[in-house]
């Protein structure tokens, strides 16, 4: 893949906004990859956690915003527990979800959640799921 780096993309105001919302300083990540190794859902992510960090460092915000990574992260904080730089990729991914949700772009519709799940699942799953997927 050929990537063209531009000053404009790296200074993308949306990425600065992400840093403010998530409370994480993206440039602290030095790409050791321990987050991707420890993350239990790396296999299901279109862009794995460590690459999310790299993409954001070099301004590839569009790719990150389109990838499913933020929606399959459950926030188990294994990435943060293993990070030698104390970066929480989980916070960055929640920040990305929030960038969508704060514009009213919901990931799920309540009506689409299967009724047996709503009836039988622990309430905590439903409350948590709606907080993560619905604005």
């Amino acid at each position: 893949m050929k990537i063209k780096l531009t000053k404009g993309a790296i200074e993308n105001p949306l990425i600065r906004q992400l840093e403010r919302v998530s409370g994480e300083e993206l440039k602290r990540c030095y790409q050791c990859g321990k987050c991707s190794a420890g993350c239990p859902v790396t296999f299901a992510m279109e862009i794995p956690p460590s690459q999310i960090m790299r993409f954001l460092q070099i301004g590839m915000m569009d790719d990150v915003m389109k990838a499913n990574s933020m929606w399959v992260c459950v926030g188990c904080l294994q990435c943060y527990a293993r990070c030698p730089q104390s970066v929480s990729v989980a916070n960055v991914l929640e920040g990305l979800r929030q960038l969508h949700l704060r514009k009213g772009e919901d990931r799920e519709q309540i009506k689409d959640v299967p009724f047996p799940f709503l009836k039988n699942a622990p309430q905590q799953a439903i409350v948590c799921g709606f907080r993560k997927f619905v604005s």
Partner: protein
Amino acid sequence: MKIPYYPGCTLNTVAKGFETSAKEAALSIGFELAEMPAWNCCGATFPLTPDNLIALSAPAKVLSSARKTGESLTTLCSVCYNVLKRTNSVMKNDREKRAVINGFIETDYDGSLNVTHFLEILRDNIGFDKVKAAVKQPLTGLKAAAYYGCMLLRPFEDMGIDDAEDPVVMENLLAALGAEAIKSPNRIECCGAHLAMTNEDIVVKLSGTIMTSAVRNGAELIVTTCPLCQYNLEKSQSRVASDTPGYAGIPIVYFTQMLGLALGQDVDTLGFDKNIWDARPLLRKKGIIK
């Protein structure tokens, strides 16, 4: 002795067996889990974006209400424990956020409540040696794997209940109850949590790894502290069994059910009938129940 207790949304309903077994077990070692008078849902998720203060208002309200009548608050559910303890840490250490949240929910809470998990009460207040001395029906010969999941342990600096990579609290409790504690390498991995709502395949894969790894290490039963872990693992059993040759399923129980059993409670009061995968045939085979 009365210990103020916060049940949260799930323990009064879907995970009733978790609550009843804990309450009965507490009584048989000399204290009462007394449900706090007025409470609301904790929100079931601690916001990972630090500017999302609105999500802290529900747990802060619980904490403030509990502080009016006591100095500590105990939980059973790992998620409640995580949300309440982390919110408490914000209320204690962040003066600006504390002022905003207190202003919003009209309280003056200062973070001075001591939020604990029932496991900590057993380990630090009662002591596992005293729990061991109270055992009437040791779980001899039972190979039980503790499954911690994520919310009980992480992030370490806020939770601090045990080592985040190599916890021992549940293994030590199981050993005190007479069981053989099995350490499985996947015991601190996530079960998939709320993805059960939208992406069952991921939950089945993660839960399957956790369960088959426990079985491979010799476990006959998995012990958990979280209603959502319990649900995800149990619900995934049949699909994991059909995908994994030689895997026949494993009962998933709450640590309080094993505690109650060892302390001599009637097995019918411990909510084993509410679990999808019945642990009683195994316990009968082991001679732990009749």
